[in-house]
């Protein structure tokens, strides 16, 4: 049972991948560890419960990876997606450590599935968790608890007592009660602030009200805010977040992976006025899907509609909510409250601009429109075969980029440039150090695991001294 009056060596705020890797590694290094998870048990592990894979460097194919992924290639991929907004020393260190992570994480009970087809062709670079992120988390929790890590649920850290970069205690809300917990070191592993609509509104204004949050409601960023207010240096653009266009029928929080839609490239996307606003066929979908959240956020009332016809229905991953169907474009518009004439006009104009070509949805096919603004550069086919379909979409926020600055040892750095005395950070809360912008599938978990493990180890050493 958790004893809040005792002084733990390591106190961990958060209960996701980064937190559990830190907890296990600290405990294995001999420290007493308390994990404070704001969510109830079922929702433990914030965004981690929705993940599917992680990206680790490796020199040869394994039973779960189809080929080698050398450190240098990983680095180049990271450099490309972040457009240079990364800390090379930290990033290379992480990539190097990620190699060992493939072994270490399995030793903690996590299982990977054999690489199967159909999964975004990530089989070479990314290891897929057997049963997904919640299964992965369950394994980490079992291991941590087996090792003697104490875990408290419904335990939100609401205040921190920090004196000149020295962490003394945390205030934790347990139901309606507040307790002060003392510990030798702090590991902040409690994610970003993506679930905090109020905070998002500071940068996005009222449109943030219409954002859907893909993970749990518990990533409120409270600890991040406290740390920044108490002198920890910030990293990452506070106005930025990873956002994709997801089905507008998704719940406000925790819709997870299943609300995503992969059919933008196959049709046209119109706003509330039934007008197109961006080149749907600019590039292959994996390279473009993360811009559509922002694009939709920029439209009136933060809503848009993906319109396509029968020819395209079976060319993409099935969706959790059915596509809305109608025998004509006019009726389709009526079903989602768009102006029927306006949508008919937009489709007709688009169809007229489509150039002949050889359609191939598996690669850039140069099937384009001519004389249309914005144009559609690939996969442009006339929308003319009933039934017609539409998906309404809204911005779905995955995570935010603002975080705490850290060094190679996952130790927080203060605004004056000095290292913190006994505070560490891991996971999304410090992801901005290596991932200043953009995203490469599976990197979120790599950051959490690698820096979580480092933070736990370093915190244990720190607590001993």
């Amino acid at each position: 049972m958790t004893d809040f009056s005792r002084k733990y060596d390591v106190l961990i705020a958060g209960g996701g991948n980064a937190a559990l890797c830190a907890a296990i590694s600290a405990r294995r290094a001999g420290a007493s560890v308390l994990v404070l998870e704001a969510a109830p048990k079922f929702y433990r592990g914030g965004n981690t419960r929705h993940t599917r894979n992680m990206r680790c460097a490796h020199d040869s194919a394994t039973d779960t990876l189809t080929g080698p992924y050398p450190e240098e290639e990983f680095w180049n991929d990271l450099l490309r997606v972040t457009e240079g907004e990364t800390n090379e020393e930290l990033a290379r260190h992480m990539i190097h450590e990620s190699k060992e992570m493939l072994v270490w994480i399995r030793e903690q009970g996590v299982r990977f599935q054999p690489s199967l087809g159909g999964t975004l062709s990530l089989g070479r670079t990314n290891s897929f968790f057997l049963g997904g992120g919640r299964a992965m988390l369950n394994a980490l929790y079992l291991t941590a608890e087996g090792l003697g890590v104490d875990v408290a649920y419904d335990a939100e850290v609401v205040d921190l007592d920090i004196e000149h970069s020295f962490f003394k205690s945390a205030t934790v809300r347990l139901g309606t009660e507040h307790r002060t917990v003392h510990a030798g070191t702090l590991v902040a592993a409690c994610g970003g602030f993506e679930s905090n609509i109020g905070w998002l509104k500071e940068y996005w204004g009222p449109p943030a009200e219409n954002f859907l949050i893909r993970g749990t409601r518990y990533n409120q960023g409270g600890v991040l805010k406290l740390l920044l207010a108490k002198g920890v240096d910030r990293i990452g653009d506070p106005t930025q977040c990873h956002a994709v266009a997801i089905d507008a029928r998704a719940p406000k929080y925790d819709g997870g992976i299943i609300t995503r839609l992969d059919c933008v490239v196959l049709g046209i996307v119109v706003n509330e006025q039934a007008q197109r606003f961006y080149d749907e066929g600019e590039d292959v979908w994996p390279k473009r899907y993360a811009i559509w959240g922002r694009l939709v956020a920029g439209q009136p009332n933060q809503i848009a509609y993906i319109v396509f016809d029968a020819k395209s229905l079976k060319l993409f991953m099935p969706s959790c909510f059915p596509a809305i169907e109608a025998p004509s474009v006019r009726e389709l518009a009526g079903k989602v409250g768009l102006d029927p004439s306006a949508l008919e006009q937009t489709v007709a104009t688009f169809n007229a601009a489509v150039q002949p070509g050889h359609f191939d949805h598996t690669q850039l096919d140069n099937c384009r429109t001519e004389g249309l603004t914005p144009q559609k550069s690939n996969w442009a086919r006339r929308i003319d075969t009933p039934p017609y379909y539409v998906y309404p979409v809204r911005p779905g926020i995955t995570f935010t980029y603002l975080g705490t600055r850290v060094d190679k040892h996952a130790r927080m750095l203060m605004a004056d440039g000095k290292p913190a005395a006994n505070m560490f950070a891991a996971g999304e809360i410090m992801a901005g150090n290596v991932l200043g912008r953009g995203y490469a599938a599976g990197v979120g978990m790599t950051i959490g695991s690698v820096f979580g493990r480092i933070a736990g180890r370093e915190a244990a050493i720190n607590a001993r001294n």
Partner: protein
Amino acid sequence: MHATEALAEADRLMTLCNSCRYCEGVCAVFPAMEMRRSFGDGDLNYLANLCHSCGACYYDCQFSPPHEFNVNVPQVLEQVRADSYAAYAWPGILSGAFARNGLVISIVLALSVAGFILGFRAAAGAAFLSVETGPGAFYRVMPHNTMALLFGLAFLYAMVALIMGVRKFWRDIGGTEDDLGSGSIWQAIKDASRLRYLDGGSAGCVNEDEKGNDRRKHYHHATFYGFMLCFAATCVATIYHYLFGRQAPYPWWDLPVVLGTLGGIGLIVGPVGLLAAKFRRDPDLMARSNRGMDVAFLVMLFLTSVTGILLLVLRATPALNPMLALHLGVVFALFVTMPYGKFVHGIYRFVALVRYAQEIRSGKTSIE
């Protein structure tokens, strides 16, 4: 659109899972689901029978209750599976036996046992409690040929009823004639005999909590192989009887007794272990209404074995005839209820595995 509420719910879940696919490495159900974009009743009955109820996808699922998506694949597929037994039962008029299966099986058992005991008493008269020894001791009251005929007919009936059910099932799930002989059946035999999909994709079967283990798999092996050994013992004894003119009872070291004893032990340990697991099982994983059917079947297997072993132990005492009547009564009830109880799960699951092997070979996908 769907025949039952459970099927409608299964459709909702499979549609949801198909847009997620995180469980694709866990068992055969999810890869089979991925070959489809929509789910008719036949598809759902197929998927439900492919499911081995390992429970893994419930604890793995980020959308299981209390999440509003309320995804509980093991529970819903269990209900669909149980309903499918009734839907494919032959003759259809007897499908009602599945509705209150525990009761039906108990009544048949009671009638059968009573019938044999009363019949034996009437036929044997004063000899009912006498000590019988030597070859043919089992057949003093009920001649071997009568016994063989009676049980042969009961078994034949069960086989016909099962085959008729399987035909309907096979047609419903879209089974074809492709490479049945050349691999799919053999693949299914391998998958079924190892219970390949009762292991959560290597993490083990979950039962009372999220910790996986192989206990249910081992108890199931004990039950299944115990049953097969007992079946083999009966076959060997029949061959002895008709081909070599050697009559039961056989000495303890002879093949029918050795096979029967080993099988009998499996049929005690297995069902007891499975029953215990069932009572410890997380209620969230189970469809509420099927416990009677599950328990009835396990108890029947257990009684078959216990009465058989008692017969072996007491065969040289005055209890021979009463024990024989009891044992025959239980076995007879087991035979005639085979097509109308949990026994069919093995048959339909095997057929589903054959179909799965077929589909894998055909390389079917849902994205064109």
